[in-house]
């Protein structure tokens, strides 16, 4: 067998495993972060019993969920019921395959290892496509539960996800037009070349992306599918144990994904602030370990910002109503994103004709 191919497969498998593990850990600790941050905003303390100031809480939660009895309602459709959480969680994790976590590759035993699993030239489309598969799982869950509240929740969710997919996709178009590529790595490089991160020319795009992203991930104030005060727990009302935790993990993984995409597309990905200003080179202070870590640090820092905004908003706003949500999606965000695309196109056209003349 070709050793080179074997090595390539091994490296890819290793990267996939690493991303999976790190992601699962981040998801678990994101839950803790959310509880802590929101607790802080609500003048409480949050979890602090397990481990030093609650740091081991995610492990305890995971163990608890793992050991819980796995109930399947008697009248549920067993196969679909079991399959649904799987269908939800696989796309949520698979979408991370194209996210560039840092800019610098590093060499191990003569092999160059890139800090992303793969860089395909349709990376953005891949993410949009994969992440919209999750809605099937949600519909399956609601239908298979054979119960009214999950059904209502899953229908709400399906309508919501499909509606917000449209402005979400359109909000990215502006970025793609400026960058001229749909590769995630290419977009970051394009931001280095143009000199500004794309949230400057595309602030409307970022806003639409952020709002639709919040709706896509069922975060407050768009958390209607699982509005606990209305629908008990929405589509996963009947789920327990590991199956429930799959939904839970998928939701938070999706949140991280939206954060990653926002970071990459609008906020310069792994680059430090003002990457062209030499005087600020010390910002890459982790270079002494490896340039990889500097990039990763800045990526994580920006990701944290986005996620913090998510949490902040959750602690502040009441929940939208179903019809108001649809109204916002179709009558406000969609026209706004189309206008944004048009304006971007016109401005680019004018600038190009100006430079060529």
């Amino acid at each position, binding site marked *: 067998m070709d050793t080179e191919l074997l090595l390539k497969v091994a490296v890819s498998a290793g990267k996939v495993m690493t991303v999976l593990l790190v992601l699962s850990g981040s998801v678990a600790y994101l839950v803790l972060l959310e509880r802590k941050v929101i607790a802080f905003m609500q003048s409480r303390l949050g979890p602090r019993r397990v481990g030093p100031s609650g740091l081991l809480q995610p492990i305890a939660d995971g163990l608890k969920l793992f050991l819980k009895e796995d109930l399947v309602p008697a009248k549920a459709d067993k196969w679909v019921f079991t399959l649904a959480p799987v269908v939800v969680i696989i796309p949520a994790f698979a979408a991370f395959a194209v996210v560039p976590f840092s800019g610098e590759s590093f060499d191990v035993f003569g092999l160059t290892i890139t800090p992303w699993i793969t860089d395909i030239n349709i990376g953005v489309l891949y993410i949009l496509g994969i992440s919209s598969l999750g809605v099937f799982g949600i519909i399956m869950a609601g239908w298979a539960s054979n119960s009214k509240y999950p059904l209502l929740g899953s229908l709400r969710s399906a309508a919501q996800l499909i509606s917000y997919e449209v402005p979400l996709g359109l909000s990215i178009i502006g970025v793609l037009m400026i960058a001229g590529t749909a590769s995630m790595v290419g977009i970051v490089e394009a931001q280095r070349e143009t000199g500004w991160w794309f949230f400057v020319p595309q602030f409307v795009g970022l806003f639409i992306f952020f709002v639709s992203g919040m709706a896509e991930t069922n975060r407050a104030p768009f*958390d209607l599918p699982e509005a606990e005060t*209305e*629908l*008990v727990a929405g589509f996963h009302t009947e789920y327990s144990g590991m199956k429930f935790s799959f939904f839970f993990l998928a939701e938070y993984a999706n949140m991280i994904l939206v954060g990653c995409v926002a970071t990459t597309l609008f906020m310069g990905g792994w680059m430090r602030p003002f990457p062209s200003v030499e005087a600020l080179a010390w910002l890459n202070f982790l270079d002494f370990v490896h340039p990889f870590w500097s990039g990763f640090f800045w990526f994580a820092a920006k990701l944290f910002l986005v996620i913090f905004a998510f949490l902040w908003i959750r602690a502040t*706003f009441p*929940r939208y*109503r*179903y*019809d108001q949500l649809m109204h916002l999606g179709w009558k406000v965000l969609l026209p706004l994103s189309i206008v944004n695309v048009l304006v971007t196109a016109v401005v680019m056209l004018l600038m190009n004709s100006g430079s060529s003349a």
Partner: protein
Amino acid sequence: MTVNEPASTLDTDIMEVNMGPQHPSTHGVLRLKLKIDGETVVGCEPIIGYLHRGTEKLCESLSYPMVEPITDRLDYVCAMSENLGYMGAVEKLCGISVPERADFVRVIMVELNRIASHLLWLGTHALDIGAMTVFLYCFREREMILDLFEEFCGARLTYNAFRIGGLLEDLPPGWTGRCRQFLKVYPACQKEYEDLLTKNRIWLKRTKGIGVISGEEAVEIGLTGPSLRGSGVGYDVRKAHPYSVYKRFEFDVPTGENGDTYDRYLVRMEEMRQSLRIIEQALDTLPEGPIRAKVPNWLKPLKGEVYHSVESPRGEQGFYIVSDGTDKPYRMRFRGPSFANLQALPQLCVGHLVADVVALIGTLDIVLGDVDR
């Protein structure tokens, strides 16, 4: 036109959904049988009785002083008002006049309890609509009031604080100072809730024009309290039939205009401010003196009947007692505001979405202990 109209060819079924008795937003054990078409409510039937304890019948076998702890358990969110109403009824029946100081302390307690009750309402109402932080802020301040109550009577929820003819104990030393401290801190806290809600666009969208009820309809159904005043009818038992020493205090009765959920919200917010005003005046003019009139331990009222009502945070709380001359009431009847207010729910719900139902349960501010008795 020969254009196919898909909406008319699609058959939709009415789905029946049970909301409660174990549902996070029915505030107790209320069960609603909702008939929904998609997400639109076309019918709503409240089913009550899950908390029925036969209180009225129970009272017939208890002597008059023994009934008071039972009144605590009617509307457990504002037990002080229940206590005051029952005391007032018995005192009217027996012709007992209460010392001034006791009356003042009672008013202070009842008004503090009104704030605590409205805080609980605001917190849960906001939580139902999805504003989670307000809930915890409200409980933070409610805690301060409950601490004051605990210091006064030892209990935090079922106070059993008053006695026929006055009070059991005077205010503990230093209590008025701590109460003033609360009065000083509280307005800033209320501003915090209002900052989060009053002009919040989502909050406005969720509450404006939701559950509109006109003044006449509200009177017909028998709504009282803030739910009635939100529709513009300024009926407040404290002003209409003054009891205790309310005549001596200056306060306004806020009313709404549109009779929607938002107006009822504003009315309750303003009521909390008015309660602060009353407490402040009561503390300023708190007289010295005895706290309890001479009342025989074995109370035997003359034959007769009496109706006495007070303004609880939820509305008119009435007590009707028939005495046959023995030491036990012959018949006891409680007029709970929650029960009457709940009657408006089916009318309010129809035509709104499922998500609004929880907002409407919240805006009526029912307590199931008071509905079922």
